[in-house]
């Protein structure tokens, strides 16, 4: 029954035509009759007690809807893992962008004047802003010890390896905050109907996260709250948890005013107040034998979660599990910790902890290579995980992955050896020095550990009265191609054409909870559920004799119409069933951390200009094994976009902090790469089957965020002979390092790196 020509084919985006004509409807393109605009008064100080709120002169405050914490009908929280983050500050503030008060008015211009006219008096409290300040516990700002979560992963007896080691290599690596910088800022519209039911339309990734948060905030039952995803102009994790906040604010203003309320953040508010990638510190201490084999190691991974917990525990979890990379560690101890500071909460961002810990690891692998006099290629080859070996959580590598072969191919595609030799020979005395660097890594697809089991996602298909099947999922499209690939999977499974299958707008009144659109899980997990649902639809039609073994789309439609006439609407929902062989012990961090892994080797070639200290990436090879590629154009687009975003993370994007507040919350002074800043990025896929994913697919969305940073900094070290272990790496950092005498010396005699 399979067409066999849908999976692996670059069909056009389902919603593509509406996007290229400007007809796609984003939340700010929508207006409701009588709608007001909402705005937020924020704290402005990092920590303190609120004494008094004053409404200044010159504003007719009667014209405004004003909401404070007292107006919240249910629980004052943005419910996520914990209920620790208030929707509106009630007496105290814990970061400089904390929302205190909401205003709504029909005139947007008056609104911004009114926000400025509200003044808040505080008793300031001492605040903390760095990992180290938080760890010192001089001020306790969250819980009893400023700690959101600790994780310990232990394998073997690492305490015994130090005496056997020929070398012990240590290093510390840091990554900065990164803004998602989706081009559409966050926004939502909320309205109550005459029966008191609440609907929110928003730019968001996870309709049911927002639904959950609104129920608790408003004290309303599930069927009284409806969340609709509008076309979403980029998200990258930034619209995973934050939309619950903006939806909550719009809902409270709508409740108070009795009118629909729209809140759209301007760019400055969006960048300053919403979540960013967690800043991190990774420390490695590794025991290595003289042949380059890792004997064991200690890894300490710490992230800054900001003022409230949000998703920090799960970001930490992914980071901790990925911290050992695609290598075999006979023994290892990973200690991970997420701590609190008085900054806006950090949150989900493509990669979700893995780019941070893998940056540390892949810089450290080059350091080990240098100490041992091995090449970066050889140190990786000698330590790669092999099928049958166990990872840090004890998970056995079941896939027939050959990382050595992947490495060989990346080396060949990038012409690594010849270039390395050429640069070493030609760099001396040049104003522009070239280097080449490599990173090998993996990325787990789907929720970590027992996450998918807990979610128990439901996805399905229904057939409309006209006989057209459509996909029912809460999985959202925000650029990655969700609508397209899920329709491809459903069409293939139904034995229809791609064009025959539609996609229901994610609306909690219409679609089941197929889980959040995160964690590179959509194709693998939700896609697989759609395969099951499609099989069930076919079974229903064949078992009542309406459909034979082979059929045309028209015969399918006729059969569906006949079925509906006799039995009512044809609909099938499938729920995630955890495979028996995937077992996870959350308490001890043992077992199958992920159902499948994507594997990759990336190679970056750079030029460092010693006059301007700027680094440009000249060539980039991205080679990955991602299971079956469902749509080659979209899959390539994911890798290209991810590598570009990661180049920004590495060389461009620096959040300037001042007492917990972002100082450069504009596109003018927080710089992301333009089309003129990026190299040609060469993308290659290897495809191994994956038993757990739809048509053998794995996840790919986050993978390309993990490798570029260490590959680029490894290339910079290759060019200059000077190690840099912190990103973003800006020209001023290179200038400073090269001005230091020691660095100058090592510049004239590059670190010894042999074949």
């Amino acid at each position, binding site marked *: 029954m399979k067409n066999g020509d849908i999976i692996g084919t*670059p069909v*056009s*985006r389902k*919603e*593509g*035509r*509406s*996007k*290229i*004509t*400007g*007809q*796609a*409807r*984003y939340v*700010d*393109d929508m207006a409701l009759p009588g709608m007001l605009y909402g705005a937020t008064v924020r704290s402005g100080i990092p920590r303190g007690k609120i004494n008094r709120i004053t409404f200044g002169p010159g504003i007719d405050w009667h014209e405004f809807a004003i909401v404070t914490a007292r107006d919240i009908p249910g629980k004052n929280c943005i419910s996520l893992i914990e209920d620790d983050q208030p929707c509106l500050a009630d007496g105290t503030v814990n970061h400089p962008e904390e929302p205190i008060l909401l205003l709504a008015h029909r005139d947007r211009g008056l609104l911004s004047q009114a926000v400025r006219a509200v003044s808040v008096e505080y008793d300031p409290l001492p605040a903390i802003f760095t990992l180290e300040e938080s760890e010192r516990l001089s001020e306790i700002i969250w819980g009893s010890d400023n700690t959101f979560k600790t994780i310990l992963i232990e394998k073997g007896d690492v305490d015994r390896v130090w005496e056997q080691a020929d070398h012990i290599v240590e290093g510390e690596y840091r990554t900065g905050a990164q803004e*998602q*910088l*989706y*081009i*559409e*800022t966050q926004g939502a519209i909320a309205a109550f109907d005459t029966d008191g039911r609440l609907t929110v339309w928003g730019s968001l990734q996870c309709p049911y996260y927002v639904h959950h948060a609104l129920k608790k905030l408003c004290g309303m039952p599930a069927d009284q709250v409806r969340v609709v995803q509008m*076309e*979403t*102009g*980029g*998200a*990258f994790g930034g619209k995973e948890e934050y939309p619950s906040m903006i939806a909550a604010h719009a809902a409270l203003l709508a409740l108070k005013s009795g009118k629909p309320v729209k809140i759209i953040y*301007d*760019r400055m508010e969006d960048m300053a107040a919403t979540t960013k990638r967690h800043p991190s510190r990774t420390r490695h201490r590794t025991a290595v034998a003289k042949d380059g084999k890792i004997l064991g190691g200690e890894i300490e991974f710490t992230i800054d979660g900001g003022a409230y917990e949000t998703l920090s525990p799960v970001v930490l979890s992914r980071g901790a599990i990925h911290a050992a990379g695609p290598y075999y560690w006979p023994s290892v101890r990973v200690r991970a910790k997420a701590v609190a500071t008085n900054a806006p909460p950090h949150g989900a961002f493509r990669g979700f902890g893995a780019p941070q810990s893998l940056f540390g690891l892949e810089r450290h692998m080059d350091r080990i290579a240098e100490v041992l006099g091995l090449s970066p290629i050889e140190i990786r080859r000698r330590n790669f995980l092999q099928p049958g070996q166990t990872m840090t959580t004890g998970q056995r590598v079941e896939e027939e992955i050959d990382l050595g072969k992947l490495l060989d191919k990346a080396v060949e595609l990038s012409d690594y050896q010849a270039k390395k030799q050429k640069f070493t020979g030609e760099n001396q005395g040049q104003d522009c020095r070239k280097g080449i660097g490599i990173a090998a890594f993996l990325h787990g697809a789907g929720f970590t550990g027992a996450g998918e089991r807990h979610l128990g996602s439901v996805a399905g298909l229904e057939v409309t009265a006209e006989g057209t099947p459509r996909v029912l999922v809460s999985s959202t499209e*925000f*650029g*990655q*191609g969700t609508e397209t690939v899920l329709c491809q999977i459903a069409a293939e499974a139904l034995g229809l054409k791609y064009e025959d299958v539609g996609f229901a707008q994610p609306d909690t009144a219409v679609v089941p909870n197929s889980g959040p659109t995160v964690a590179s899980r959509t194709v693998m997990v939700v896609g697989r559920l759609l395969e099951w649902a499609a099989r069930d639809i076919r079974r229903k039609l064949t078992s009542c004799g309406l459909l034979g073994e082979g059929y045309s789309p028209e015969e399918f439609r006729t059969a569906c119409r006949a079925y509906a006439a006799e039995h009512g609407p044809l609909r099938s929902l499938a729920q995630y069933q955890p495979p028996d062989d995937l077992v996870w012990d959350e308490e001890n961090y043992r077992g199958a951390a992920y159902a499948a892994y994507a594997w990759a080797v990336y190679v970056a070639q750079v030029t460092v200009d010693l006059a301007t200290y700027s680094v440009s990436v000249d060539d980039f090879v991205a080679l990955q094994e991602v299971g079956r590629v469902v749509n080659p*154009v*979209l899959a*390539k*687009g994911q890798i*290209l*976009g*991810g*590598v*570009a*975003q990661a180049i920004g993370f590495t060389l461009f994007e620096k959040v300037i902090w001042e007492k917990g507040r972002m100082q450069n919350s*504009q*596109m*003018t002074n927080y710089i*992301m790469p*333009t*089309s*003129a*800043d*990026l190299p*040609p*990025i060469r993308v290659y896929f290897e495809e191994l089957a994956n038993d757990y994913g739809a048509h053998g697919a794995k996840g790919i969305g986050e993978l390309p965020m993990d490798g570029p940073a260490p590959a680029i900094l490894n290339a910079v070290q290759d060019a200059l002979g000077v190690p840099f272990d912190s990103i973003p790496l800006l020209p001023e950092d290179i200038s400073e390092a090269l001005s230091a005498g020691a660095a100058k010396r090592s510049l004239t005699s590059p670190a010894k790196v042999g074949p």
Partner: protein
Amino acid sequence: MSDCPQGRSKCEMALRVNGERIVVRAYPMDRLLDVLRGELGLTGTKEGCGEGECGACSVLLDGTLVNSCLIPVLQAQDAEIRTIEGLRSDSRFQELQEAFLELGAAQCGICTPGMLLAAFHLLTKKPQPTIEEIREGLAGNLCRCTGYQQIVEAVAEAAWRGTAV
């Protein structure tokens, strides 16, 4: 010119948008972007940053590519304004749109209208740009999804098809 001495009250201004003469009531210093989106319902023009950095609000003003978030509506009087809605029937624009669709140049779509206008403007000035010229020509329009490569390929493809016709 209209009579708005202080600029503090709304007044009527005549605009030519997508070939049509339209009278709007707005403050003279209202952003052209808001007038297009709010008053005229032309929501294909997007706002990304409000400070002329991202190019999502790109429109053509007398054939020149401008950020409509930086143009007071007063300044747009008497000029010919073209938005994505007005380019729908232009065959060269359609060629660009199709290339964007086929080659994966649109992901989330929020930068796409502005990007298409910037590409159209580039190809109008320079029908056969090199890859470098495309990269330079689009550098005023930010895209966070694609890494630009598939956009650059789409523009090159449309340019090629343009000469092939």
